[in-house]
């Protein structure tokens, strides 16, 4: 392989070393058997975060959302910012698993399960925020069209029932996709587990998988079908989330570019999150033979590509605000955002989302775990800031100056944001402890494909 300026470049491979199938299996199952100290520490910290979440959650439910900083006109603030941020993070998992499977990208194999788990846990966090934001979360079931004695039905011309359908479908399909992918590995765990209890428990979840030819044939077909179903689903979910904004009349929200803009932003933060999860795992569990430099390189490139789509939409959005000549649009995009009360957040967003990822043009940055982690972290911060700008900066300057108001988060708002990160990590550490987080069967399949065939 030769670089663009003629210098030879070391070729990057999806799998390094010459481990046998048995060694690979042992290596990838090891985290399930050993109790490491760092895991306990991380688990305890994330458990504390979960407790914070429980406190803030319970306090909100008991007292009402008056304990948040929300006001009129800033009726959507941290609640919806966190919702959009989390659901965005939840997009890369299914994208990596489904879309890259359809494109036959081999580098997806080692990272797809981590990414899918991330999706499921992020969607759980995301789903809780709108429910909490209802104010009376115990009435959330009113979104379901059930024959009620009140004789009214949900209004399907509103974006809220769309959201409900999109997120519950996305969660269900992501979970199914994840579980189907897990079945062969659960069978491996069943066959290798020390002790009868684990053998029985994993055996139940493995459903009696025997790895028969008939199993594999249907399994691969169904996995492909699920990938085909999940790929448009990924695109639809954040498009539908964006319609929560786009079908309103508010300057800053009322824009047809919103669906693709949101999808690009979702994948952007999602890939950044995959990087942030995979890099520590790779270091702690010494997985650099399975999660190779090739994976880091590809993930870095994906972040860069998505970053440019986001930059493009920022530019187009601002251009159309100016081009429309609408005084409210102009005021929103050219005054309220760059020079208003939240200008610092806006410029922070521009720096994190537009400037920082340009470092990924350098191969050295893409292949350096530390630098890549820093970039991914800043992108994550930038994407949170983007949702804050979209929501708060658009709302705090209403049509009528008499209703203008500032927004400041309370400790409950912060508690829910940090607590949801804690709860997400809590679920993720449980996942690391009890489920093989690199797909063993896929890695072995990949090894068989990459190596010259051993003949009999």
């Amino acid at each position, binding site marked *: 392989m030769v670089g663009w300026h003629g210098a030879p470049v070391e070729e990057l491979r999806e799998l390094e070393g010459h481990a046998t*199938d*048995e060694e690979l*299996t042992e290596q990838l199952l090891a985290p399930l058997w050993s109790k490491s100290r760092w895991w306990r520490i991380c688990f305890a910290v994330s458990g504390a975060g979960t407790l914070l979440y429980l406190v803030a959650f319970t306090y909100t439910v008991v007292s009402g959302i008056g304990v948040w900083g929300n006001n009129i006109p800033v009726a959507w603030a941290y609640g919806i910012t966190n919702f959009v941020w989390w659901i965005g993070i939840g997009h890369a998992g299914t994208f990596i698993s489904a879309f890259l499977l359809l494109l036959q990208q081999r580098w997806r194999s080692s990272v797809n399960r981590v990414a899918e788990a991330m999706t499921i846990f992020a969607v759980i966090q995301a789903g809780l925020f709108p429910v909490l934001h209802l104010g009376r979360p115990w009435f959330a079931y009113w979104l379901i*069209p059930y024959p009620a004695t009140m004789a*009214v*039905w*949900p*209004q*399907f*011309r509103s974006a809220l029932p*769309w959201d409900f*359908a*999109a997120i*519950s*479908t996305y969660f*269900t*399909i992501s979970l*199914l*996709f994840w*579980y*189907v992918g897990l079945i*062969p590995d659960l*069978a*491996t765990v*069943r*066959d*290798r587990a020390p002790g009868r209890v684990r053998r029985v428990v994993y*055996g139940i979840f493995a*459903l*009696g*998988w*025997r*790895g*028969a*030819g*008939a*199993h*594999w*044939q*249907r*399994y691969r*077909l*169904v996995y492909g*079908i*699920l990938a085909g*179903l*999940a790929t*448009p*689903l990924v695109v*639809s979910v954040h498009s539908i989330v964006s*319609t929560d904004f786009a079908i309103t009349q508010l300057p800053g929200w009322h824009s047809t570019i919103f669906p693709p803009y949101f999808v690009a932003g979702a994948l952007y933060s999602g890939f950044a999150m995959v990087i942030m999860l995979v890099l520590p795992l790779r270091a702690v569990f010494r997985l650099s033979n399975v999660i190779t430099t090739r994976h880091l390189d590809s993930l870095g490139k994906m972040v860069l590509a998505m970053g440019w789509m986001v930059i493009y939409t920022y530019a187009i959005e601002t251009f159309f605000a100016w081009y429309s000549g609408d005084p409210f649009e102009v005021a929103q995009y050219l005054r309220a955002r760059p020079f208003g009360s939240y200008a610092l957040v806006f410029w922070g967003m521009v720096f994190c989302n537009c400037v920082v990822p340009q470092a990924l043009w350098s191969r050295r940055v893409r292949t350096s775990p530390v630098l890549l982690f820093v970039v991914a972290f800043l992108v994550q911060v930038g994407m949170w800031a983007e949702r804050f700008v979209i929501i708060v900066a658009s709302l705090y300057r209403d049509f009528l100056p008499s209703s203008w108001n500032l927004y400041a988060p309370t400790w409950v708002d912060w508690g829910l944001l940090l607590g949801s990160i804690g709860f997400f990590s809590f679920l993720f550490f449980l996942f690391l402890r009890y489920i093989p987080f690199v797909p063993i*069967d*896929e890695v*072995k*399949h990949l090894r*068989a494909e990459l190596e010259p*065939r*051993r*003949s*009999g």
Partner: protein
Amino acid sequence: MRGRARFVEPGIMAEFGAEGELEHAVVRLRERGYTRLEIYAPYPVEGATTLLYQTRPRLNWVVFCAATAGALLALAVQWFTNAFDYPLNVGGRPLFSLPAWIPVTFELAVLAGGLAAFIGLLVSIGLPRLWHPVFEVPGFERASVDRFWVGIDRRDPRFDPERSRQELTELRPLRIEVVEVGR
């Protein structure tokens, strides 16, 4: 047992250490006239699977029908609730507002299709079935790690314990095991 007739219930099995040896074994057993063979592998082995299963399962049609049914159900529910049972005039927009109903219709189609794919997978491979006679075969636990097994159905017309063992030995497997009859 009648419902399981379509699945191979091996009477004798042989273990191999490599994918290529497995494929070779399937070819040779086929040449000898065996028709009801099954392979067991830790990951999908294309060659041997293609030899045994030429027909593509029709699960995709099941999924297609389920997805269509899901979409129609979603449309019917939205029409019934918003246009028929509780018609609400919102700014003079048509009661049958198809564009606004597309998101829910699409989501329900995907949901129904995905559930059908999952259930269809389980039905078509006869799972969950937590215990199976092959699990009692010594060494079979490595079929999910790094070993490749071939099994001959005891209902195969050519199956005969002695002759089949002889023919499997000629393939030089790592070991040959007889499967006890299922409980």
